[in-house]
């Protein structure tokens, strides 16, 4: 939130809002400020105020009301007090299973993403032939619809005819039930998600790398540090803001997994790929449990919100981008 107040300070400085006077009433000050306001400003922000009221404020309030009700959209709402929250927290193993699946996903996705993106970014930061081509190739899956990527990867992961098992069999290894083995499916999805997003994170790391001043490496070399030491002592520490951003964005991606299990597994086998958003979707649109779905949304949003707040707190420091 530090950045918020900082931005606001910049805003008032640049446009020159006069400070509060020491004499005279607050209302008079307000009236004077309004009189000298550029009224056209209100016309310009009007679309936003309408948008905010309809698509932000109303849904927020309604979500809060829904949490305390049972509702199937057709018949009238029924007040149930804290029943939804109680059920979610203490009486719904499937919700916790979905949350556990998300954690499993993140446990593979985040380290894989960090290591590969950083490694490729470091290589791409050199003067090498076809650099632009590589950059574009890695970025392509990020631009394309998740529907394309998931349907394609489901074919690649196919146990009988998929490319992965074809390669394994050529190497004389047994095939793997990439999406059919409950112990493996969520990790298969994590690998695919890494493939889809890698290019984006490579670009973020590249931006960070290009912000590191070259003289730091020269100074280190004069002091006798080899390239390996330079990487651990200069490159990595100066990239910590980017690293943090990558972790946070991947975590938020993990919490909003939907199309991947929806397309590839339907949440199976044995609910091993059920994600929280898919669980919410099923409650809302298959069982018509609107109140309960809203409660899941609330709890999920609370978790994401905590992640965002941590991000804002940690990222308020200096960055090299």
């Amino acid at each position, binding site marked *: 939130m530090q950045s918020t107040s900082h931005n*606001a300070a910049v*805003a008032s400085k*640049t*446009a020159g*809002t006069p400070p509060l006077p020491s004499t005279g009433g607050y209302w008079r000050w307000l009236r004077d400020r309004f009189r*000298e306001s550029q009224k056209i*400003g*209100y016309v*310009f922000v009007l679309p936003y*105020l309408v*948008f*905010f009221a309809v*698509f*932000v404020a*109303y*849904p*927020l309030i309604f*979500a809060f009301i829904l949490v305390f009700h049972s509702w199937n*959209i057709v018949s009238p709402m029924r007040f149930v007090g804290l029943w939804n929250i109680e059920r979610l927290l203490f009486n719904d193993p499937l919700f916790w299973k979905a949350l556990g699946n998300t954690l499993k996903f993140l446990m593979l996705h985040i380290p894989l993403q960090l290591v*590969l993106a950083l*490694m490729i970014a470091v290589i791409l*930061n050199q*003067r090498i032939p076809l650099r632009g081509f590589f950059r*574009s*190739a*890695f*970025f*392509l899956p990020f*631009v*394309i619809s*998740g*529907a*394309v990527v998931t*349907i394609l*990867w489901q*074919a*690649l992961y196919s146990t*009988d*005819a998929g*490319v992965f098992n074809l*390669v394994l069999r050529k190497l004389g290894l047994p095939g793997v039930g990439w999406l059919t083995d409950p112990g493996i499916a969520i990790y298969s999805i994590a690998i695919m998600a890494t493939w889809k997003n890698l*290019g*984006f994170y490579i*670009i*973020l790391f590249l*931006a960070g790398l290009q912000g590191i001043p*070259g003289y730091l490496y*020269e100074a*280190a070399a004069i002091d006798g540090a080899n390239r390996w030491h*330079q990487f651990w002592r200069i490159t990595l520490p100066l990239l910590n803001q980017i690293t943090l*951003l990558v972790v946070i964005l991947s975590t938020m991606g993990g919490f909003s997994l939907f*199309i991947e299990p929806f397309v590839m597994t*339907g949440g199976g086998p044995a609910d091993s790929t059920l994600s929280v958003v898919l669980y*919410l*979707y099923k409650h809302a*649109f298959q069982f018509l449990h609107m109140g309960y779905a809203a409660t899941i*949304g609330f709890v999920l*949003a609370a978790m*994401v919100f905590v992640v*965002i707040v941590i991000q804002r707190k940690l990222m308020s420091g200096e960055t090299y981008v």
Partner: protein
Amino acid sequence: MAMRAVRRLVSPGRFGQGALKVVLYLILVAFAVSFIYPFLWMAAASLKPEREIGTLALWSPHFSLRGYFYVFHQIPIARAFFNSAFVSLTATFSTLVLSSMVGYALGRLRFLGRDFIFNLVLFTMLIPGQLTLIPMYVLIVKLHWTDTYWALIAPAMISNMGILIFRQFFLTIPGELTDAARIDGCSEWRLLFQIVWPLSKPALITVGIVSFIGIWNDVLWPLIVIRNWQMMTMPQMVTLFHVGGLAGAQVSAEMAAIMLLALPVVLAYAFLQRYFIESLALSGLKG
């Protein structure tokens, strides 16, 4: 002299010598292959006969367009393409106009309550989408907007990130320019759209690409508010074609469907790569 030698050796813009250089390049090539091969396999599989799908080959003498004919026969994919294009273009245009208006007001105009509204924008950006998904759906139902373009366009007509990007960009435009125009009696409307817009191409491109790609690729929201096949967006229809088993277990037809879905974005990406990469990376750094 010595300094230059050291710099050549350690500068981050240079490789170490010989073996390391080759090894690193090979790693890079291996990764690049793993990124490109699946797309080539997808293109080949969309043309292969069914019994040749389970091979690694990218070429077959039996290539045919059967899969594509099947897709066009089974689902109104051309209509879905039109829906997606119409919805994405309309919403993107609206986002550019409305977000730049708000960004302009927050960055270049002085009025009571401006900083409050700016904080409202920042606050809204913190709200995760999962929270408002259900009440938004209820809202669309109450407005009788299900199975209409409104359901897809209205929630995407203005963007918080767009407002912030425009505001920040407008702050960098010198005040003398706008002041001179104002003295000549230019209205704020003309000022924004005839003087500031032409100077703001980078911001327009960034916001345009980010919102267009976001709307074009979205599947979850259309799945919720659109049930009528004539009104579906392209990614939604292709997803349901696959999940609903309409491809009749023909992998070639599924690959043909996702080829059709990927093609417009791949073409746009081929011509505008640099803008795509810069815009989307920037949106990540901002968010």
